[in-house]
């Protein structure tokens, strides 16, 4: 099973293609594709969004959906992207607490 991801042109943010053809930041709302023909069609749709200057660099990646319908990326790379943050704390205000 696959989903389609990209980055927004203006902000660079990670986004996912939904069933309504929108690009949203939550993987939970991503449309899922179970065959290669559907993936190819979705990537063609994504190219239209590239041409419309909404997103850049679209591609498909592997996901799984559990019994409750929760979507999770399979690779660590895509899990990190979906979290929209590095896995380490980057709270650079914390040094003040150590004074």
């Amino acid at each position, binding site marked *: 099973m696959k989903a389609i991801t990209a*980055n927004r*042109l*203006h*902000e*660079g*943010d*990670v986004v996912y293609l939904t069933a309504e053809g929108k690009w949203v930041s939550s993987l939970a709302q991503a449309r899922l594709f179970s065959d290669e023909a559907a993936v190819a069609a979705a990537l063609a749709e994504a190219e239209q969004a*590239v*041409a419309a*200057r909404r997103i*850049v*660099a679209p591609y498909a990646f592997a996901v799984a959906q559990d019994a409750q319908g929760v979507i999770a990326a*399979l*690779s*660590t*790379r895509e899990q*990190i*992207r979906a979290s*929209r*943050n*590095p*896995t*380490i704390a*980057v709270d*650079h*205000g*914390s*040094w*003040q607490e*150590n*004074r």
Partner: protein
Amino acid sequence: MYRYDEFDETFVRERVRQFRGQVERRLEGALSEDEFRPLRLKNGLYLQLHAYMLRVAIPYGVLSSRQMRQLAMIARRFDRGYAHFTTRQNVQYNWPKLGDVPDILEALADVEMHALQTSGNCIRNVTADQFAGVARDEIADPRPWSELIRQWSSLHPEFSYLPRKFKIAVSGSPHDRAALRVHDIGLRLVRNEEGALGFEVMVGGGQGRTPVLAVTIASFVPAADILPYCEAVVRVYNMQGRRDNIYKARIKILVQALGASEYARLVAEEFEKIKGTPLGHVPEEEIARIARYFAPPAYDALPDDSPELEAAQRMDLGFARWCRTNLWPHRVPGYRIVTVSLKTPGAVPGDASADQMDALAALAQEFSADEIRVTHHQNLVLPNVRARDLPAVYDKLRAIGLAAGNIGLISDIIVCPGLDYCNLANARSIPIAQKIARRFDDPAMLATIGELRLNISGCINACGHHHVGHIGILGVDKQGQELYQLTLGGSSAEDASIGKIMGPGFPADDVPDAIARLIDSYLAHRSSSEERFLDCYRRIGAEPFKRALYDGHS
């Protein structure tokens, strides 16, 4: 410091204006992504895992307080309040918005900075010994020569489309703090028997998937000839380097294919041709003009020792430890070079918050003749601190969380952004560094282990210099699992060597224990407390360390 002349100023402003127009046309749709991508890369703007990333050049790692304050302002206004100092003495912002980048570049131009040639197949930002001009062991100051190379290599029309990226490092000391042997060209200032100044020229070094140490192709090139000589080195590469395979396109592959002596012969031939042209001669007055920008600040006449410093060391053991690890002898009596560790255990190596950057700018202004350096080990340097001011500097560093006394020790880890930020990475590297730094966060243990360079890369591109770590860690993706291979025996100093892979990789959670077993083995085998980890490894070989890593743990 070098100051922009009218030409530099006009040129950088013009490039900002051009890029502003390119971004506008991209957002309006006049430029496609395929057309825009090479243009943004020429301005240091990448698209990474989460967002755009802007890489800003810091020529030979030298910053003024004013520039550091502007970098902090950019972090605060346009990013997420922090920035990341890199192994190429540059600084990176991880979260800029495309539409803001022209304003960021304008803000950089206001303080004589830019992001040109921080990407692409061109000569990148020239790097240098971070102690340039102040180190006691220095033969001559490499900064004027680095600046000369910066000017020559900036938009050099012949070298704008090289087969691959090209990195030049310059040092003026016999002790190599600039990793010369792992650069495309490494230049070391030397004096010949007559006392004349020249360069030893090393060519064809690099890391990545094919780590190679540069070979010396000329032991003495007169200093005034260094530009035409570099021109010849790069021209031979540009003409003969491979363009058919990105993995074989670096100069190191060409030097290996031709052999060092043949490469040297071709360079000598080209050099003779260039010598007869206007490019073949840099006027002495131009070298002198540039050198004047690097005139030393007005130093006080001081005794080398300071009673205030000695008293403070007796009073505060933490300060005394910091003095042992983070100071370096200054060429002027009564002064010290201070390395500010960006490796506080648990923090992200190389990161600094905007508040920390502002505080460092203030420290440099008050205590270090207004100057800061960036090291390729991802630390910062205050190059001109009076010995008697060290207690005050230390207290102020403690107040901003940057007083870790660990320079050159196991927790002073070089680490690439890895899979937490980078589009190319296969595995995370920052969390591994944090775990190791925490594991060894004990002053007595750090002191017992002594000098140890530990470097971590999140993929084979080796931005984290793992090949030249005494201990190197390489993150790989094995069937979806992040695994970490260990290499031992690397060095980027004057005793440069490439580390050897010990065996199968370890899962992330097992890496700190594996490192601990290596350290235990070292402590058991070292001939004395004076024998460094690297020297012990070189003496006894890999086998005892392999046994420590794998016997009962594979």
